[in-house]
């Protein structure tokens, strides 16, 4: 595999992202990056494995609250907190995965939603003593400065998140190229055939589920550090739309879809909130329009064209199967 070709897409994407930072206010830029990480899990599940989940907020909350609990009650090192969040997500996904992954597509989506609701109520009411319910857990004062990159400061946090995002993207791109990645696509398109070939469909699905939701939990942990406050609202059913919309908007299953989707979504949200404040209207209709127009999303439609263009321009060296 041509190393230059393999890395070229990623390098271009992340250079552009870094440039974006010049034009966008810092909180915005961080938000977009974290949101992209949040979404890539959902996008991977939907676009590659064929599972739609309306309950991604659940895993976001698991990551966020794990980090918050650590920082509130156990330690003050934000890196450790992040690790706790990541591990919590991994464990959580591993725990519920075996049950959920057996379900038919629509049941899967809704049971995940149920999970999000369960966590919402858990954090809001049942565990209110340790979570402070709707008031949320406040973290800003609980984090130590760290050497080299002080992620309790926004400027440095951005750099850190940028690096994390880059790593995540390299990981997912690598995944695409492995046999495992091909298996995922196969599961989506024709799982019976895959079974006949000797692959364990359940294992493929379970692994995808764990990978996607650990990524989501990582985003949750990052949110906790970024926002400095974790409240049950992040797992409320109303928030279930966000990753789905961004996934579809950007193009489900594409590598850069979540990034583009995030940028567009966050931008739109900001613009619309300032103008008419009625956010749901735009989100809802955008979703319907995209679905009816072919469900490929922005990057999903652009990508094949850009590839052909790149291929022609560089005489076939770039742009073919990345």
């Amino acid at each position, binding site marked *: 595999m041509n190393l230059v070709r393999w890395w070229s897409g990623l390098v271009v994407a992340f250079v552009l992202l870094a440039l974006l930072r010049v034009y966008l206010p810092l909180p915005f830029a961080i938000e977009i990056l974290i949101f992209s990480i949040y979404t890539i899990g959902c996008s991977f599940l939907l676009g590659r494995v064929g599972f739609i989940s309306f309950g991604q907020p659940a895993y976001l909350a698991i990551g966020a609250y794990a980090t918050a609990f650590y920082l509130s009650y156990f330690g003050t090192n934000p890196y450790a907190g992040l690790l706790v969040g990541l591990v919590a997500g991994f464990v959580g996904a591993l725990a519920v995965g075996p049950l959920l992954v057996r379900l038919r597509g629509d*049941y899967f989506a809704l049971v995940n939603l149920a999970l999000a*609701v369960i966590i919402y109520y858990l954090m809001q009411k049942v565990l209110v003593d340790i979570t402070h319910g709707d008031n949320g857990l406040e973290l800003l004062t609980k984090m130590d400065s760290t050497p080299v990159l002080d992620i309790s400061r926004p400027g440095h946090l951005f750099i850190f998140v940028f690096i994390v995002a880059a790593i995540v993207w390299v990981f997912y791109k690598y995944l695409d190229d492995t046999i495992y990645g091909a298996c995922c696509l196969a599961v989506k398109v024709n799982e019976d055939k895959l079974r006949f070939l000797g692959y364990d469909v359940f294992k493929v699905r379970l692994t995808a589920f764990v990978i996607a939701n650990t990524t989501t939990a990582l985003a949750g942990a990052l949110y906790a550090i970024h926002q400095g406050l974790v409240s049950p609202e992040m797992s409320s059913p109303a928030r279930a739309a966000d990753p789905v919309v961004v996934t579809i908007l950007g193009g489900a299953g594409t590598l850069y879809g979540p990034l583009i989707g995030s940028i567009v979504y966050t931008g739109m949200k900001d613009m619309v909130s300032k103008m008419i404040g009625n956010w*749901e209207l735009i989100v*809802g209709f955008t979703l*319907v329009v995209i*679905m009816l127009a072919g469900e490929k999303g922005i990057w999903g439609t652009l990508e094949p064209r850009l590839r052909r263009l790149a291929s022609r321009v560089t005489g076939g060296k770039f742009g073919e199967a990345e």
Partner: protein
Amino acid sequence: MLDIQLLTSGFIFGLSMGSIFFLMTIGLSLCFGVMRVISLDQLLYYTVGAYIAYSVSLVIGNLWIGILAGIVISALSAFLVERLVFRRIYERELPFSMITSFGILIGGVGVVKLFWGLVPRPVAMPIDAQVFVLGTEIPVYRLVVIAFAGLVYVGIWLFLNKTIVGKAIRAGIENVEHVEGLGINVSRLFTLIFIIAGGLSGLAGGLHGPLIMVEPQMGLEVLAFAFMVVIIGGLGSIKGTLVSSFLVGQVVSIGSLIYAPLAAMAPFVLMLLILLVWPTGLFGSPMLKK
């Protein structure tokens, strides 16, 4: 501890909640059973039904007329959505209809916000009277709600078993292609089912109004519950929907008597447990691909 009076009122409360769930979820179940689409927008018609009932009752002073108006407008909305959107997506896979109908639901919430604003509105109870049942006071309105659900169930049963269109629908739940091959206009049938679903969802919303406050997000908050009921009962089975509405209603109600914070969560846990044993719900249709 738990005495008869508390249990009675809890039980009736559970029945009335179950009644609302039932009315709300018949539409979902039918749409899936016949058309194999997930119609999350039914919760929009529920919201619309509630709001129209509220507004009309404010102007005219009679909630029942308001509820009637709510049913009509919901059915009309459902009709429009079916013609404009669902028509084009019947052939697609399930996640497609889920995402699209979700978009309609969210967009619709936005429309509701546009007209009525964010503030939750209280709806006046049409019947203030209370009645004594087994020593506890029960609001008559709750009994009326239960009566409505009962009537609707009987009505649906009669429709499905005694009318030719109903029989076509039952046949359609089994195999829509064959119904079409016989020469029956399934396109019209689908539209009819959608209108019925929308109307029933609107009725659910209208009836629910006085028991809660109407606010734009009400459809989203109930979404999880509605789907849980349908999943436990099994998508596509009316009988299943009835049983699980009843079940979930009681779990929430009696559950909140036992330990309030857990009560809202209990149905979800119940659902997870049931799915462990019956992956398609208690009475669900088998996993059919088109």
